[in-house]
């Protein structure tokens, strides 16, 4: 469903990501774990075309999207929930969701989206900037889902969010995976969250995948060692 082939990117002269290879199956949730500065956000930004890739291909459902502009990648089925949420804070919750909707939806938010995030329905008239951190995170996910994606990329979704909401988000992610046949790639530093949702674990260290484990034989201690400072 989603694959990376020899993917490389960086800033200016300095290469951050070194020839990454990854294949994610349909309905699989893959966690990319790593400390700050190891290339998680760079990976996601380059996948979305916000940062230019140096070489390599990324394919969504068999289609190579690496030469496309960001908005065209979205149309091909990539959706992105950035670190820090980046909702449109001066626009209402409803308008935030509408920015992701395709033209054919004519501005109508699908029922199932509100069913996943009831709090967004209650708050739909409020400005996005006046929501709490957890609510903003849900809004960012809802906005990404509005684009009808095949692959959802989440960059550190638990950052700065209280533990009870983190549990909610974990449950919602597992729900949407089954409801929408979604493939999810999520980057994290919090192991408990990913142990809850992920089928496969990758550890990224200095721009390379150094550990890969399936859920069945994941070694919690060894991954935790990569995450501790």
């Amino acid at each position, binding site marked *: 469903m989603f694959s990376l082939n020899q993917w490389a990117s960086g800033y200016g002269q300095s290469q951050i990501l070194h020839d990454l290879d990854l294949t994610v199956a349909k309905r699989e949730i893959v966690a990319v774990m790593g400390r700050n500065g190891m290339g998680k956000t760079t990976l996601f930004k380059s996948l979305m*075309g916000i940062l230019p890739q140096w070489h390599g291909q990324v394919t969504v459902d068999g289609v190579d999207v690496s030469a496309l502009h960001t*908005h065209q990648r*979205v149309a091909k089925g990539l959706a992105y929930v950035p670190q820090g949420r*980046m909702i*449109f804070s001066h*626009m209402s919750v409803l*308008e935030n969701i509408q*920015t992701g909707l395709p033209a054919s939806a004519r501005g109508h938010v699908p029922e199932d989206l509100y069913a996943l995030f009831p709090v967004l329905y209650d708050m739909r008239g409020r400005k996005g900037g006046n929501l709490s951190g957890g609510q903003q995170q849900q809004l960012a996910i809802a*906005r990404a889902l509005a*684009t009808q994606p095949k692959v959802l990329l989440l960059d550190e979704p638990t950052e700065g969010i209280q533990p009870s909401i983190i549990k909610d988000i974990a449950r919602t992610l597992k729900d949407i995976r089954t409801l929408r046949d979604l493939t999810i790639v999520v980057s994290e530093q919090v192991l408990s969250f990913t142990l809850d949702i992920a089928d496969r674990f990758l550890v990224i260290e200095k721009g390379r995948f150094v550990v890969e484990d399936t859920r069945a034989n994941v070694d919690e201690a060894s991954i935790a060692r990569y995450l501790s400072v």
Partner: protein
Amino acid sequence: MAWLTEFGAIAAMQAFNGLSVFCVLLLMALGLAIIFGQMGVINMAHGEFLTVGAYTTYVLSGLTLHYAPSLQPYYFFLAIVVAFVIAGALGWLVEWAMISRLYHRPLDTLLATWGLSLVMQQALRSIFGAREVSAELPEWLMGSFSLTDAIDIPRNGLFTVAVTLLLTGGLFLLLFRSRWGLHVRATMQNRVMSRAVGIDTRRVDRMTFALGCGVAGVAGAVFTTIGSTGPTAGSLYIVDTFLTVVFGGAASLLGTIASAFAIAQTQSISEFFMSGSMAKVLTLSAVILILLLRPQGLFASKVRK
């Protein structure tokens, strides 16, 4: 008592005169505010799009007079539409040929658009000559209504106000009720994120620039009813227009309206009591003083950080 009513009448007429200035200023500033707010482009050539709209009206008035004199009373409505289309198309072309290549260099954009304004001025001077021209106004736009014996309200002023109200209302509908407007506002706030939710920000930019220039074109058509058109007609307004945008708060259209009103009225009413340049000094000092107290402009929308 007699002097008091007389004074009141003069104040009322002067205020209405200010309303006409307000309309031209507002139409200019709305276009500029959208372009500046969304793309961060300081368009020094915005005034020339007003001039283009004004000359379009002049040419159309000449054409109707020559080929279809019977349609003369109605040509002005067509002129407004054509001015919008021509100025808009020109804006589209300018964005495609020049602005889109300079998005990462804001200071260069400033210089480039200033250069463009000089080129456009000279082009208009070469085509139409340096002498000021006037469009032949239809009969119904001339003269005035007498409210009382002392107060005369000019018809062209009323027409200007009506066009401005309609256009401003239309712009607001477009911005706050349409899909395009949603995309414009999203792009204004976060360009990168807008792309990442699937918005083609380049297309939005081009449309926005064209629309802003089109509205300036309509301002030009309207301008012909209150002044005569020369190659530099628009550039006389550009400073006041920028002042309006900054004073109103760059991201707020309501602020733009309020600030256009305040600046036009202060200017127009004080012009009656002192010389034109002193009135300008008064207006500018007031604006500077208020900007010192509220650097973000008159209106700024509040959310928690």
